[in-house]
């Protein structure tokens, strides 16, 4: 029996009048999707307190980037959220473009939208698969999602030479043009994605286990979500209409009419459904982008890649990543390396309210609530 102050308070508040148990969940728990640890204090099976422990994957990405040139930070950003390297690249090059005042040609903007929305598609599909795996649907939904992801990764491989660590975007554009027939291939992958989503939804949306496990679980109230800086699908599931694509109109997103799906209750089911609906909107954006993309230059010829020395100053650029607002804050002192390089990691900040969402639920629900937040430890620990 441990007599921590928490136990004492829990006792005096009448929450517990018997022994509490402290359990260390992780860092090698399969549901943590990496090396993340939660110290949970249990009253029977009910969570009384939850303390997240970070840092198992910490390598001080920011310091590494401050020692290297602007260009050589791009491959490092791939490793932040290692599932979605394309969006990481975009957030970083967007910040450098703001800092140095670089324009982007139209074709490159289209390529960026296409790669980012493809990333969003497979990120959300995999999240849904993982979430259902955590609920006990072992294998099937996740494998279906991974099958679709493989097709998109094949596209990325033929475009960039790498499946996951794409290292593709550059200041003022992209590294190389689309290979011949890529757009047709992408249209084919996209055409197969809608039926996959129909099948996925038909299998799962009315599933009794999904509803029993996720309805009313891990509720995140709207005011708390805003105050705690939760972004991405988690915020919109709590009913806040805030999508950086709509707010900032970065890139060429103002050309695409798409809706922002919102949840009502802010529970795990809403977070799941918001992602499914966002995939539908992404398909619409992709359809339009693949239709409209025109030949042209893919990089601003005046943009300097090597030995870039932006004028002294600072810039904060952000995009709507699949997991939330991904931002880069850069300070230049006129030198060849960034004076300050900061990543705003959505995965880490979305975990601020993990304890609030978990208290009062059983330990098996923690797995699902964490799964619905959607974290990647490469980005949480940096």
């Amino acid at each position, binding site marked *: 029996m441990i007599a921590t102050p928490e136990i004492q308070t829990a006792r005096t508040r009448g929450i517990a009048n018997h022994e509490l148990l402290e359990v260390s969940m992780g860092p090698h728990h399969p549901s943590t999707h990496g090396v993340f640890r939660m110290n949970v204090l249990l009253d029977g099976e009910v969570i009384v307190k939850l303390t997240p422990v*970070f*840092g198992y994957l*910490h390598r*001080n990405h*920011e*310091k590494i980037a401050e020692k290297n040139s602007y260009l050589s930070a791009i491959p490092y950003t791939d490793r932040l959220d290692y599932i979605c390297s394309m969006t990481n690249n975009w957030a970083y090059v967007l910040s450098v473009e*703001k*800092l*140095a*005042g670089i324009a982007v040609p139209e074709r490159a903007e289209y390529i960026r939208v296409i790669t980012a929305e493809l990333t969003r598609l497979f990120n959300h599909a995999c999240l849904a698969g993982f979430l259902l795996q955590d609920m006990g649907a072992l294998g099937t939904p996740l494998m279906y999602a991974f099958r679709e992801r493989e097709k998109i990764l094949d596209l990325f491989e033929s475009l960039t030479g790498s499946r996951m660590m794409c290292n593709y975007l550059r200041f003022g554009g992209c590294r190389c043009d689309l290979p011949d027939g890529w757009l047709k291939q992408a249209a084919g992958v996209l055409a197969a994605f809608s039926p996959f989503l129909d099948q996925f939804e038909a299998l799962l949306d009315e599933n009794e286990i999904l509803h029993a496990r996720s309805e009313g679980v891990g509720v995140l109230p709207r005011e*708390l979500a*805003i*105050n*705690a*800086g*939760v*972004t991405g699908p988690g915020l919109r599931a709590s009913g*806040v209409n*805030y999508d950086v694509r709509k*707010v900032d109109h970065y890139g060429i997103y103002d050309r695409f009419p798409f809706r922002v799906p919102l949840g009502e209750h802010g529970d795990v089911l809403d977070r799941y459904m918001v992602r499914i609906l966002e995939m539908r909107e992404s398909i619409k954006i992709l359809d339009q982008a693949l239709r409209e993309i025109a030949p042209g230059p893919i990089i601003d010829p005046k943009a300097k890649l090597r030995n870039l020395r*932006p*004028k*002294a*100053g*600072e*810039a*904060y*650029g*952000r995009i709507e990543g699949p997991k939330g*607002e991904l*931002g880069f*804050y850069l*300070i*230049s002192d006129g030198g060849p390396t960034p004076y*300050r390089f*900061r990543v*705003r990691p959505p995965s*880490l*900040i979305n*975990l*601020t*309210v993990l304890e609030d969402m978990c208290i009062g639920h059983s330990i098996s629900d923690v797995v699902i609530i964490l799964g619905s937040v959607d974290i990647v430890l490469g980005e949480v*620990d*940096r």
Partner: protein
Amino acid sequence: MLSLEQISTRICAAIAGARIETVPNASPSAQASLLIDNEHAREIAAFLRDDRELQFDYASNVTGVDWPEKTVKVKTKTKKVIDGVEKEVEELVEQKTPAFLEAVYHLYSMVRGGGPLILRLRTGNRTDHAVLPSLTPVWRSCEFQEREIYDLFGVTFEGHPDLRRILMWDGFEDHPMRKDYQPVAEEETKP
């Protein structure tokens, strides 16, 4: 969104004694920021969040910046009497900028759609006065990010509910994001 000058006059009108300075930004991003004083920082933050015209309800990015002492050589013109004739002489004078640590807050408004408003807080120095007021009581989103500044830069946040190291382990002594940090061999420091 109101301009930075309008925002700072609004703050000064509402909070007596608040000292606010605009920090210009020469880069093409043109994101200038407001330097606010530490005594009124939390009051100003609460005002920015609750004021009906501003409603910065969302603190997006919170981070630290290390500014060690710098010596800058500045050309100054002084009048001197040389051989009985008054002449203007250019001299190189060394100026020392004081060292400090900085916390930078990027604020947005989810309700009104404005932003970013950038706030800066500066510590007295980098050693014994590396203390800032915590803004976590105003915005919960600062909780982990201020812990990170405490961990990596060594700024103590007064009024933070749970100020512990977050990425480095307990018992680690230095602050790795400081500019003068000297890495030690890994094997010596690991617990």
